[in-house]
């Protein structure tokens, strides 16, 4: 997940999104629209991101963390018990050769990952560590590990209750398990939840999954080539997105889908090289992470500040509990829906436990955060809102500076990576939004075309306009998906437990076995 605003990235997002000079020069229609939209959606945004009483901890983050903990306990630490089995599934050890040509577990995992790995891993972590200190990394890893159980639950249900059509195509996701699952269990309200989820999913797809991405991509391009009007970037992106999702031009999507994993691997490798180059600092860095997790080391908000930031960034990076992954994973044609659940639990592990931790380690090891030599604690910036950094960097620029301190050329690679991640996220979310759209309005070429065209228009708007309030609302919509989704998961988790018990038994008895490849 790559949404930034309202999530502790307010400073970065505001700087990127708002153009105060332009705003002062043109207080006309744009500002009026923004203001009207902000007034209209403000209460909803405030509600979703409201802190728990007496804290600065958004209740929505607590909602996701509690859900992840409940699922972890309910399924008796499934993420640990079946971790190696999940890897075997991805490797294809349990795939019937007669099913070759169908979507493989690896492909479903890679597709879902390309929708989640991105700016959240690059910029979000920098904010978490910048505000919460190294200790935030500990809580981030913990939240990532717990989130694996949420993904497992939602993705199993996504495959189990998906629709398979006569023409061989499939549609799946929370809206289908809400309506079909609830009616199977004789529970009321499934359809209402499904409609609510679909509405939030469409809004989230157009906002956080589209406009925000276009906006971030434009900022990165402008950072390289100099400032120019955002609508130009928007138009180029919209044309490319149009060619892929409307024109069916697979070659561009195929190139992106190949380049994005390559970028991800390059990012992790670069991080590993930096960590190895500073091998003598690894022990110290982990010491900082553990000490910071429980003492705060003088960061803003102390230990609780570290905990809040860590949990926040993990929850917003891996999307566990939001329901989007259930849409992506439901395309796999498997006789055992639960196998896709096992595979999906690797997603938060790769996204948060591996990639986010790499980012954090590089920032800590390259000593971007300034330590007071007298006390050994971190120094706060002048405003006292975050840790003082070398050159005053935060967000993307902090990560960029950390990598750039080892490889001077890396910031350019990072900028390209952000642009590509933004594009792949748009393609993923165009599909999530489309599935929600077709759930509400029915399948059909014209109906689908209408959504796709709307989606492309929003790319241009996203790159061009000052969209603070709109993006706040879009982010809120994505996390509103989590409110509805987690609520439904609590009712449906017993279905997953039955599947888990049956599968475990057959795995133990040897009925489910590896195929000799």
């Amino acid at each position: 997940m790559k949404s930034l605003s309202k999530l502790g990235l307010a400073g970065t997002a505001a700087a990127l999104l708002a153009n105060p000079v332009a705003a002062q020069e043109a207080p006309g229609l744009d500002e009026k629209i923004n203001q009207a939209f902000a007034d209209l959606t403000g209460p909803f945004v405030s509600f979703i991101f409201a802190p728990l009483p007496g804290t600065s901890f958004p209740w929505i983050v607590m909602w996701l963390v509690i859900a992840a903990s409940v699922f972890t306990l309910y399924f008796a630490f499934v993420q640990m018990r079946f971790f190696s089995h999940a890897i075997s599934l991805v490797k294809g050890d349990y795939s019937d050769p007669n099913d070759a040509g169908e979507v493989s577990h690896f492909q479903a995992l890679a597709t879902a990952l390309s929708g989640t790995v991105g700016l959240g891993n690059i910029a979000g972590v920098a904010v978490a560590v910048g505000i919460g200190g190294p200790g935030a990394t500990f809580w981030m890893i913990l939240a990532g590990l717990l989130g694996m159980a949420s993904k497992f639950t939602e993705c199993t249900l996504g495959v189990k209750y998906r629709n398979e059509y006569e023409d061989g195509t499939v549609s799946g996701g929370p809206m289908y398990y809400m309506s079909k699952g609830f009616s199977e269990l004789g529970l009321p309200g499934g359809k209402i939840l499904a409609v609510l989820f679909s509405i939030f999913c469409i809004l989230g797809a157009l906002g956080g999954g589209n406009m925000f991405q276009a906006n971030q991509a434009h900022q990165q391009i402008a950072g390289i080539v100099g400032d120019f009007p955002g609508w130009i970037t928007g138009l180029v992106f919209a044309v490319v997105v149009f060619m892929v999702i409307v024109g069916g031009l697979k070659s561009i999507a195929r190139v992106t889908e190949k380049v994005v994993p390559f970028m991800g691997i390059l990012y992790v490798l670069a991080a590993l090289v930096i960590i190895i180059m500073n091998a003598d600092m690894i022990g110290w860095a982990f010491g900082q992470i553990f000490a910071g997790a429980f003492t705060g080391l003088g960061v803003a908000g102390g230990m609780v500040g570290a905990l809040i930031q860590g949990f926040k960034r993990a929850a917003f990076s891996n999307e566990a509990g939001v329901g989007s992954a259930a849409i992506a994973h439901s395309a796999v044609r498997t006789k055992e829906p639960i196998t896709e659940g096992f595979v999906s639990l690797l997603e938060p592990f790769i996204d948060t436990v591996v990639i986010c931790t790499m980012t954090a380690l590089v920032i800590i090891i390259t000593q971007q955060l300034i330590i007071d030599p007298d006390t050994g604690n971190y120094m706060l910036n002048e405003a006292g809102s975050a840790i003082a950094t070398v050159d005053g960097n935060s967000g993307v620029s902090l990560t960029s500076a950390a990598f750039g301190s080892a490889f001077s050329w890396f910031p350019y690679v990072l900028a390209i990576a952000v642009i590509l991640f933004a594009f792949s996220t748009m393609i993923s979310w165009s599909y999530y939004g489309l599935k929600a759209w077709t759930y509400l309005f029915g399948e059909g070429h014209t109906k689908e075309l209408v959504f796709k065209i709307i989606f492309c228009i929003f790319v241009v708007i996203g790159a061009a306009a000052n969209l603070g309030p709109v993006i706040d609302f879009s982010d809120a919509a994505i996390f509103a998906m989590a409110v509805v989704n987690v609520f439904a998961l609590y009712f449906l988790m017993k279905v997953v437990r039955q599947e888990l018990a049956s599968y475990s038994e057959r795995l133990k008895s040897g009925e489910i076995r590896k195929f000799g490849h």
Partner: protein
Amino acid sequence: MTTKIVIGLDGTATGERAIAFAKDLAERIGTCELLVAYVIEWSPYTFQTPEENAARHKRREEEIELATTRVVSPAVDALKAAGFNATGIVRHGDVAETLNSVTVENGGAQIVVGRSSADGLKKRIFGSATQNLVMHADVPVTVVN
């Protein structure tokens, strides 16, 4: 005892020559069964968009249908018309690996293929499907030029 010969086709003219050679071989052996195999190149480790994934099953069925009607069925029909005992199979996967596993599964005694038509850089780096088959097959392989 019946000897089973697997003929690997790739939809090109070299396949025709492989069939002609297999027919000749079958006549010399006597009691022989011919299995015409076509492997659609596919890897489980590629990257796809969500939309491609959702339509994958449909695409797979179309690919199998196309390979069956255009390549395998005409070859099997021609062999049957010529008096041979012939069947056909279409699979997805790595060409060399899948052709070998189809042969092993069906008790094939040998594989006959045409010289591969893979081109350029890919062939130089990874070798052609034929080269890989010759290197790794569990049964004798005849490559027809």
